[in-house]
């Protein structure tokens, strides 16, 4: 019922691995954790690995756009990795694929 988050920092690349269901409840629990890690050390690139995410609604879109704006304000970039077909559908629908790389 919860979302697990694992964070790896290497050469100014911050990779965030998410596992579980990404809804408003989950987003409100992990947002600060990601932001703290963006502030802790210089980050040039934020990678969101979604291979473990089994569900996402527009609260996830809010999380992604919010982190995108933040990292860009530091001059960094953002990438989404390994979204399922289901996730890809909502990522495309909301135009996230126009803002950043998805692979």
């Amino acid at each position, binding site marked *: 019922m919860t979302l697990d988050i694992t964070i790896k920092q290497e050469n100014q690349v911050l990779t965030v691995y998410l596992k579980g269901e990404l809804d408003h409840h989950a987003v409100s629990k992990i947002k600060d954790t990601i932001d703290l890690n963006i502030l802790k050390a210089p980050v040039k690139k934020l990678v969101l690995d979604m291979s473990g995410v089994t569900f996402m609604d527009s609260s996830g879109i*809010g999380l992604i756009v919010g982190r995108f704006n933040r990292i860009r304000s530091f001059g960094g970039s953002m990438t989404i990795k390994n979204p399922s077909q289901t996730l890809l559908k909502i990522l495309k629908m909301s135009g996230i694929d126009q803002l950043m790389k998805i692979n």
Partner: protein
Amino acid sequence: MQPINRMKIEFDSKSTNEAFARVVVAAFAAQLDPTLEDLADLKTSVSEAVTNAIIHGYEQKTGTIYMECILYSNSIKVIIEDHGIGIEDIEKAKTPAFTTKPELERSGMGFSVMESFMDTLHIESEKGKGTKIIMTKRFSRD
């Protein structure tokens, strides 16, 4: 069209109940043996409407959310209702990327998701009285 099954549920406007509402609807719809894609579309739309009731309708204060599901031989109707603050301008609210809670990093895409993932979406709302979302989805056969 005769309904073949129906249920009505009410639960607290707590964010833990977003996942609960999704499981309830999915378990009920499972009786029609929908495709995984149809089921995912339905769950996402339910999640949007329930989250909106929690965040916008009740502004994260205590309230009750009412959900009704009616199964037909090949489709489902879901009604999600709150007795919260209501929507001032429904047409504006439906505009993609429009949100009254940007400070909560809402994307303003909730209604767009419901419109694109369900077959019909109908919104009834009165300021100060609450909001009722009525959506239907036809299930495709594999």
